């Protein structure tokens, strides 16, 4: 599989991977969502596990490949202010305040960018301002926070200090209706994109919450007969992959969405283990499947400390399963660098691609 994907006049070049499985420190533990900061940094909300470790938001500095650094960790497991049970969403406002959701305690907490707890709000319920399993969230240009209130199948808009302002949507399968939505993003015009998880689609709403467009319908392609399943839910690695595998435009429990500076739309097609790319009208362009052929910096440290892992790695016949996404949960586009950043959840890493605008093709007879 190529490291550079050229399709429909666009070029995407795999750049590097960051991370490894780690309950704390330099790595991740099942990222659910992530969010770009204002200074070339990124915040990742880690779900953790039932041993009550791994839960946290970590803030990383992104630079060139191999120059990533861990800047801060907060919202770790525990009771009381500043701690979490089930971390889910993370968003940053223009003042670099960080908003995070906890879908077990049904609260939104606010931190200073350095990890200092500032305040929180939230009450369990379905009334105005009440929350049930708040998932992704996003800060708009007015300093408000739009929360995916997944258990109530709606969006709620709060002021930065937690005052209820508006709500959009209800449970259902119709336009503007949701079924356990997950991630959310805004385009530069303030339009709202929501990953409508259990309806297997992304919906685009106006800044006022009116339905504008939907992308995708449910679909997976059956695993080929010779497939090697990385888990019983895929990804299915096969030497006879059909061209369209899985077919473009079909989504399986999408979890997140991003919009680039050209208006192209990136969907984390979680259950199909890929990023599906669409143009601004919702026409399918191509898919990214994950291409981490080069070990991440922190991953390499683990290999260096464990010679038997290296030995095993050198004996493996097909390393392709290690390159591929396994349940990617989140996707972001960095307009400053043209980078597409993907949270590869089950692999506890980020994979970073670059949208190449000045790609000059090489001579075909090389």
């Amino acid at each position: 599989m190529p490291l550079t994907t050229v399709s429909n006049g666009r070029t995407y070049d795999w750049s590097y991977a960051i991370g490894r499985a780690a309950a704390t420190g330099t790595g991740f533990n099942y990222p659910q969502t992530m969010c770009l900061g204002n200074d070339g940094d990124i915040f990742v909300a880690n779900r953790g596990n039932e041993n009550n470790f791994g839960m946290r938001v970590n803030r990383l500095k992104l630079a060139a490949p191999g120059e990533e650094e861990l800047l801060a960790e907060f919202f770790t497991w525990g009771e009381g202010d500043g701690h979490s049970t089930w971390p889910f969403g993370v968003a940053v406002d223009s003042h670099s305040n960080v908003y995070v959701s906890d879908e077990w305690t049904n609260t939104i907490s606010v931190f200073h960018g350095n990890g200092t707890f500032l305040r929180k709000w939230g009450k369990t319920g379905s009334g105005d301002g009440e929350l049930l399993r708040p998932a992704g969230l996003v800060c708009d240009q007015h300093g408000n926070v739009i929360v995916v209130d997944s258990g109530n199948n709606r969006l709620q808009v709060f002021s930065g200090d937690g005052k209820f302002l508006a709500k959009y949507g209800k449970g259902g399968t119709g336009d503007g209706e949701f079924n356990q939505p997950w991630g959310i993003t805004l385009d530069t015009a303030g339009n709202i994109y929501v990953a409508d998880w259990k309806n297997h689609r992304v919906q685009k709403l106006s800044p006022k919450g009116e339905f504008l467009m939907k992308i995708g319908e449910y679909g997976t392609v059956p695993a080929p007969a010779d497939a090697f399943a990385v888990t019983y839910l895929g990804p299915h690695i096969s030497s006879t992959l059909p061209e369209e595998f899985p077919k473009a435009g079909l989504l399986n429990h999408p979890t997140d969405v991003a919009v680039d500076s050209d208006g192209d739309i990136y969907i984390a097609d979680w259950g199909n283990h890929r990023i599906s790319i669409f143009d601004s009208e919702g026409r399918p362009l191509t898919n990214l499947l994950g291409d981490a052929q080069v070990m991440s910096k922190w991953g390499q440290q683990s290999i260096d400390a464990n010679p038997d892992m290296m030995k095993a790695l050198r004996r493996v016949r097909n390393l392709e399963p290690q390159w591929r996404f396994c349940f990617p949960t989140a996707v972001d586009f960095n307009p400053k660098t043209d980078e597409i950043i993907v949270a590869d959840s089950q692999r506890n890493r980020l994979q970073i691609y670059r949208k190449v605008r000045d790609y000059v093709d090489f001579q075909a007879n090389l």
Partner: protein
Amino acid sequence: MTYQDDIGLMAHLMRRAGFGASRDELEARVAKGYVATVEELLNPEAQPPVDPYELLRYQPSALLPGGQPPMGNVNYMYYMVTTKRPLEEKMALFWHHVLATGNSKVDNYDQLLEQIVLFRHNGMGNYRDLLLKIAKNPTMIFWLDNNQNHGTAVNENWGRELLELFSLGAGNYTEKDVREASRAFTGWTFETKIPRLPYGRFPWKFEYRPEDHDDGAKEFLGHRGHFNGEDIIDIIVQQPACARFICRHLYNFFVADEPQVPAWSLEPPRDPAAIDAMATAFRESNYEIRPVLRLLFKSDFFKNARYRHLKSPAEVVVGTLRLVGGYDLPKPGYGELSMQPSYMGQDLLNPPSVEGWHTGSEWINSGSLMARINFVADQLGNQSLPGVRAIIDRLKAKTILEPDELVGECLDLLGPVEVGADTRRELIDQARQWGRLSWDSGPNAQIAAKRATEMMQLIAATREYQFA
């Protein structure tokens, strides 16, 4: 038969073919009928499967949990507690008992869960096909060292257990048969897997290496040929001992406790006629499991075996959680819940050895008895759980309960549980201490609800409640 008898029989079926059922469910099933319910259980495809995506959204680490508990247990427990296909799940547990593989050596809960998925999908299908699948299952290959079984150096671990524990039982083959079977499985191994560092677990993939296979002539159970593993399995299933062995396992699991497996070559079954009938159905259907189960659940020997089976810890925990409700979301705390069977002596996905768990009275020791009673009592005492509320609401509908009525109703709604006269007398004496319970006012209703949960806890502590 009275309506109450129908409920009692349906409750028996659901405890054995599943993990019990609420009174609402029992009433709905009685309305549908016993035979129709048996058919529904035998054909699980008509019911929706457990949604794995729901589990992964809330507990993503349950997919590839690695070698440490409890996330693998969370995954398995979530399926057992929420399944709408109870017999499919019960059969997966059955095969986990028989084709026992453990994390103590495998150190990969993901691989053990993959095996459970295999059992879930094939547990009621063809036994020969299942044996072949498990022979090619890398987890089993590693567990019984078949990756060390080479054409030039035979390792007999898999070959021996295949005959002794998975198909025929001791006494039905010779040491030479073990050797020859093992030779036939040389070269059945797996590819080098991608190591777990730094990105988490990757699976094994079965691999057949013809250059490592001993293709020489073999003599196995009276047959001669250049056998490969698949031929060995074909010969095994044709043995009369095979049908009897598997059916005795089914009888022990679903009908009534038999002695432990090592004693089977010495002690006859408690009901030889039942085993014969099942074995005949097994052979006539060409080793399909489903017809045997159909015969079993419709038989008198099954219907008359109420409370002749000591509940396994998995049955205690899953049955209780399904009864009390409130565990549909894989919520925080599932980890501790899913370890409860291990505290009672059944560490799921990690049986003590290839022999699986010893069952029946061997589930009970002074520690495990306290663990099981206290776990059930703890759940039944929690009035915030919907299933506990539902029981209290049914009691409440009676408005007033005399002491003997309280005992009768609680025994009924928790089973119906059948208790001896001495036990019933103690329960009634306890209820008499409390006097008549009434729901006529707020404070009285509060006391009545509390007493009802205390009565249920005392019932859970009885000897009789340890049986299904």
